């Protein structure tokens, strides 16, 4: 059975080679199904591995060959599967397969159809290497690989200057992250003399290592995670990445790649255990990201951008859980988020497909009638993410909130705020898109149709998962004997938390109540505003006139609107304009331009004149000799 591990990663690799090399000559359907089949094989094998791991908590390990050995350092090309990996494997291959099938219909007729599947397969391969690698170097290979596929797929349709700009941003940000990760790796080699998970964590668990170095390692790894998982300040690339085809957004930028940072931190939980400073940092960065992205999400009108900011916000929430040491909660939310966010993205893809490429929600509306299946699944996704009782998002978010509540009340309040904002922007998106009246062109209306089965079946499956995903880790008050399945499942990896902050059932119920109440409020507000009144978000240029506000001032919800919602919205807008587009983007661009500017400066030094070169050389010589002598 050991060969299974290698087969799991080799199958998508074979898929990549086949579709990439001969896919051009094959009919579209064959290429598409070949690509999907490759992932399906991985999925089936993953299930078998999962079953074995269930019986054997220690996990499996398979060394393929020695990658390199120098001095005392030896790094193997080795795969492993433990309970954390097994969970991720199912998510990646399962959702990956559904998205492959979806893409067969979605990408139908595209000139680069075979390339798309080759890239997708390559992505799955790299993602599997990332999660199944038995050491940090394998993780880094996967890390770089998924990043690469992400660029390739973002730029799939946009091979022009504008894309170049967006890609450059993604590039610089991920570079900063990778720099942190690599430095962390070198520091691990320096401190532990190995990159092997087992060796490193075993050594770290003994607790006799320099805590300063471990903290530095943890922070550097987190910098890597920030880049990949889009946290402040390295998050603005993710909304821009929405330029790629929608299945890509669903697979890479919602369900799998962006969660690599979470996986990394959970994987290194032994190290983080010794680095409370790093954990605090994660907590604060996470909550700040969550709030910021949720605020910005309120004012977005591009259906995919809303979802993108929502992803950033949810990832922030997962980091909040990690910051509290609640690894199970983070993994739980990661899993359910993968279900419902993939569902939402695929749903939006279905909408975009139906609308003939339209992405602006202001030109949609009343899609319920023509796209019933998309409507219902999207509704399920929305409710799941908004935390409708007993759906997956309800349990996972609730668990995070409960953990934060114990850990830090202020952060909890902020997290609750973020959850509320999430409900609002998701419901707004839903109402504006599917209800109200149709605002598109006649041509679009005529063209409007439900998507083919290859797109709707994955939607349906994901919808079922979004509803039932909560079963993975029910809280005690609901699940009784079946509670905390995931927590027990992950215990071999995350260990039994020492000071289990068990909160009383009463408090837990109260927290749930708060969540439900908030959802209800958000539902009423958005329903009133966007469905009943049919308010359509204004175009970006037209600001809400104060005059109109005044004329309706005796309406309670208008007051509410002015007192709370408007400031929140404005904050979102300002954040988007100032922090996102101007602040972080400018800094990142400036960071890139700085080097180019320095390059231009250097060009003047290299002026082609031998005399200058000679005198520079002599000056350098004098400095070197003098410095060395008088040092």
């Amino acid at each position, binding site marked *: 059975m050991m060969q299974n591990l290698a087969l799991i990663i080799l199958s998508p690799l074979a898929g990549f080679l086949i579709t990439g090399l001969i896919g051009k000559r094959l009919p579209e359907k064959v290429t598409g199904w070949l690509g999907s089949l490759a992932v399906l094989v991985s999925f089936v094998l993953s299930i078998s591995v999962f079953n074995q791991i269930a019986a054997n908590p220690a996990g499996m390990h398979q060394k393929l060959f020695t990658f390199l050995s120098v001095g005392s350092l030896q790094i193997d090309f080795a795969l492993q599967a433990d309970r954390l990996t097994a969970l991720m494997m199912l998510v990646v291959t399962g959702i990956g397969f559904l998205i492959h099938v979806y893409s067969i219909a979605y990408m139908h007729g595209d000139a680069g159809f075979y390339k798309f599947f080759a890239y997708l397969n390559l992505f799955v391969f790299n993602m599997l290497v990332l999660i199944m690698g038995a050491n940090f170097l394998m993780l880094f290979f996967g890390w770089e690989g998924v990043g690469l596929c992400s660029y390739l797929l973002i730029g799939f349709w946009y091979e022009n200057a504008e894309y170049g700009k967006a890609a450059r941003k993604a590039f610089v940000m991920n570079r900063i992250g990778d720099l942190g990760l690599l430095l962390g790796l070198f520091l691990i080699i320096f401190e532990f003399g190995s990159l092997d998970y087992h060796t490193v964590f075993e050594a770290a668990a003994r607790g006799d290592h320099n805590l300063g170095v471990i903290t530095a390692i943890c922070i550097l790894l987190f910098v890597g995670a920030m880049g990949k998982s889009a946290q402040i300040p390295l998050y603005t690339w993710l909304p821009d990445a929405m330029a790629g085809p929608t299945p890509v957004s669903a697979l890479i930028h919602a369900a799998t790649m962006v969660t690599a940072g979470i996986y990394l931190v959970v994987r290194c939980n032994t190290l983080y255990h010794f680095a409370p400073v790093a954990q605090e940092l994660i907590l604060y960065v996470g909550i700040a990201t969550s709030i910021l992205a949720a605020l910005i999400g309120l004012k977005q009108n591009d259906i995919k951008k809303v979802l993108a900011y929502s992803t950033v916000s949810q990832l922030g929430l997962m980091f909040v859980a990690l910051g509290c040491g609640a690894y199970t909660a983070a993994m739980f939310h990661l899993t359910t988020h993968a279900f419902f966010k993939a569902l939402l993205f695929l749903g939006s893809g279905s909408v975009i497909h139906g609308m003939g490429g339209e992405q602006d929600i202001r030109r949609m509306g009343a899609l319920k009638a023509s796209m019933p299946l998309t409507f219902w699944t999207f509704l399920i996704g929305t409710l799941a993410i908004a935390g409708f009782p007993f759906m997956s998002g309800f349990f996972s978010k609730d668990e995070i909130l409960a953990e934060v509540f114990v850990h830090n009340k202020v952060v909890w309040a902020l997290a609750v705020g973020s959850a509320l904002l999430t409900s609002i922007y998701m419901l707004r998106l839903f109402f504006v898109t599917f209800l109200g009246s149709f605002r598109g062109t006649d041509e679009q209306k005529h063209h409007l149709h439900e998507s083919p089965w290859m797109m709707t079946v994955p939607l349906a499956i994901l919808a079922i998962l979004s509803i039932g995903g909560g079963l993975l880790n029910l809280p005690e008050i609901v699940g009784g004997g079946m509670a905390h399945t995931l927590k027990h499942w992950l215990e071999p990896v995350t260990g039994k938390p020492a000071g289990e902050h068990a909160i009383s059932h009463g408090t837990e119920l109260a927290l749930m109540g708060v969540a439900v109440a908030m959802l209800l409020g958000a539902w009423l507000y958005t329903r009133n505003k966007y469905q009943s009144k049919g308010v359509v978000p204004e175009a970006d240029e037209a600001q809400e006139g104060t005059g109109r506000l005044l004329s309706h001032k005796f309406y309670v919800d208008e007051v509410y609107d002015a007192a709370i919602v408007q400031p929140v919205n404005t904050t979102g807008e300002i954040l988007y304009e100032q922090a996102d587009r101007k602040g972080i983007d400018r800094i990142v661009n400036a960071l890139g331009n700085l080097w180019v500017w320095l390059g231009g400066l250097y060009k003047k030094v290299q002026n082609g004149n031998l*005399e200058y070169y000679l*005198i520079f050389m*002599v*000056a350098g*010589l*004098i400095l070197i*000799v*003098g410095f060395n*002598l*008088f040092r």
Partner: protein
Amino acid sequence: MPELSKIPWPFLILSFISILCALYVVTSNSPIRSVLALILTFFSISAHYVMLNAQFLAIVNLIVYAGAIMVLFLFVLMLLNLNKETEPLKSNKWLIGAAVSAGLLLLVFTASIQTSSEHIMRHPEAGTGLVKSLGKVLFTDYLVPFELSGILFLAAMVGAVMLGKRDAANESDTEITGREEV
């Protein structure tokens, strides 16, 4: 710096000549005069070699440097008809820059010499610099580098011929490429 009075006068005079000639080489604005001054410098350095009991090198220096290499320089100067031209010297900016650089380098050199020259063991052996003893070592221990210098010469010769010869086939119709008018 040791006192000048303690230094034997032949050394002083020779050094004086060397430095003077060297300075003339670098400051004269006529290449031809530079060459001649350089030959004089080499003669004075050969005299130093004699004083150092390095007779073999003294002779080789005269034959190879002053004889062969400098004649080559003169020949090229004549060939290129640069003997009459006076070369425009660089501006004062360059003069100062070059002088300061050279001065500073001299400074760091002397600083590094300051403490170390007394550590040099003094084991003068009379016969070291003679042709006989040098030749013996050259053709035993130093045989490999000697052969290697043969390759070097061959390579240099081939290279010089390659650059110097005119490509008979396409000499006339080949335009000079890459010229960018200033």
